[in-house]
């Protein structure tokens, strides 16, 4: 009888372990949804123009620190906007990284959208303007359920990649 109880206790333990290791199932994305992921890092333009130093100014600098131009370190924030037709999917102003605000702005954002055809628009302003975009891209995409569409900004071609 005691052995039976012992077996029963272990069986119950196994049941709990086995059950909670797979159940209840977790639905990360509903069956008719897809995902649009926006991810890239981008260094915005500097807040001011570089200025060429005069010869006198250069002479005043220590020899190892002489440089032809003086550029401000701080960069503009990066303004991002992503739309599907007229619906705003994501809009954000991202600050540059670093304590001097001179680093790249990081973006990683996921948006759940209904599967189907979307007229996607993505725009980025990195020059401090409050309206308009320095870079933009539009594409009609068909998103199947469960599709993860990734939008990146390619620094080499200076354009958005949607794939």
């Amino acid at each position, binding site marked *: 009888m005691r052995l039976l109880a012992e077996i029963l206790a272990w*069986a119950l333990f196994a049941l709990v*372990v086995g059950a909670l290791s*797979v159940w209840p*199932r977790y639905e*990360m994305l509903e069956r008719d949804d897809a995902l649009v992921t926006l991810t890239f890092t981008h260094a915005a333009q500097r807040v001011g123009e570089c200025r060429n130093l005069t010869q006198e100014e250069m002479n005043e600098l220590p020899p190892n620190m002489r440089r032809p131009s003086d550029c401000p370190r701080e960069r503009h924030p990066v303004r991002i906007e992503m739309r599907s037709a007229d619906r705003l999917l994501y809009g954000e102003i991202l600050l540059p990284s670093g304590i001097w605000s001179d680093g790249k702005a990081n973006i*990683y954002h996921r948006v759940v959208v209904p599967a189907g055809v979307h007229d996607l628009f993505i725009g980025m302003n990195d020059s401090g303007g409050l309206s308009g975009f320095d870079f933009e891209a539009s594409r009609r995409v068909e998103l199947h359920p*469960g599709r993860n569409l990734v939008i*990146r900004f390619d620094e080499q071609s200076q354009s958005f990649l949607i794939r």
Partner: protein
Amino acid sequence: MIEHLHRLGRSAFELLRRPLARAFDSDQNPLNQLGALTIFFSWIVLVSGVWLLIFFRTSVSAAFESVEYLTHEQWYLGGVMRSLHRYASDALIITILLHVIKEFVFDRYRLNRWFNWVTGIPLVWMIFALGITGYWLVWDELAQYVAISTAELLDALPIFTNSMAGNFMSDELLSNRFFTLMAFIHLIGLPIFLVFGIWLHVFRLNGPRINPPRRLMAGALLCMLLLSAIYPAISHEKANLAMAPQVLRFDWFYLHVYPLVQLWSPGSVWVLLIGISTVLTLAPWAPPARKTTVAVVDLDNCNGCKRCADDCPFGAIEMVPRTDGTNYTHQPSVDEGLCISCGICVGACPTATPFRSRSALVPGIDLPNQTAADIRDDITRNAEAPSDAPRVMVFGCRDDRQTKILRSAGANVVTVRCMAHLQPSYLDFVLSRNHADGVMLLGCENGNCNYRFGPEWTEARVTRQRDPRLRKRTDTARIAMGWLAPWADIANPTKRLDAFRDALSKMDAKT
């Protein structure tokens, strides 16, 4: 507030203990071996993990195939090992959780036990990190979900300049080296820290229980093997970064936090996790338990026999060179930070004998708040005059509920700090001086003693297997020992006492 929580937790434990007590003897009861059982499950994880490692390939493209090979082609061994690896990892989360709750509700985390409590918290973090990186390595849809969600969590910390989650946006961008790094963390890095962490967790204990009893190990292994055979662990579809995982067979033991990353935000999840860890870390001092007076050494009565140091469950007594100029080489030194005033050292001291009459009863080591002389006084005060009915003197552990119930039922009870606080010569004293016809020792069962070794040392001393041994002239038939969980709720508290009285009556009738 804390005491209320403790009481509530004890009642919940009783609900779990009752059915388990029907299935297991006290020393085999999984509830009494939670720490050791956790280590045993870790052994299963380690051994099965070594087998998996032999066949596992640490690259993005080959990892999934190598796990599939183990699961399906080599199902008879690799598949079983994979399932064992998975289920033993899950099982140890249950034992850890119960272990933490038990130590909390029985107030075994304050005073000198803060160190074991606090060092246990990083262990929990490491175990979770091991589980999470383990899921990552399979590189199926669940691994993809875990990898991206973990990266999102880490991105919320001001550590990385670039987004880590951005690495998981396409199969082409994913680096094999990154994958190898994860494999290194899971297979070598974390296990090394874990072993060191376990050592740190228990090194202040005297004789820590590392292995559970063999029968319990066999039961646990068989349980895991059967589960692996009946319901083998399998993978999801291979990870595909162009697709988002939709419905996942979720391991709630390890991944329960991840849905919160989506529901709230990574930052909020960190606040929750760090908040819980901080509260747990500070728990031993919120509020601190009342410090009791520690054991005191009396060199005039100490011959440096070392038994107190051997029996101290918390390693609070160290033998140091003698300072009083006598011929004895060593003397005990009590570390006030480690002593918990259980009195087990007094029970181990050969000089703590109540038969002393020429000099005052001052043993080599004693507890100031309940001295050996106090116990002798309690015995003589509680002694009953001979009568027709057998007289039983009950010695009860202070923390034992049976003792309280019996006392309130009118039994003749003498309370000590822990049952092993009572040196065996006291039993001889009670019987030979005719203070009672029988002695009943009631304490907490093995594995549930607040002072770890109370029942073990007492049984060994009374059965004359450990010093100081019970004198041979003492009739052990007149000594009854009863060990129960300290929170056990006994429906009829006097039943056991009555049964012992009946046994004594029969014994007296024969003589």
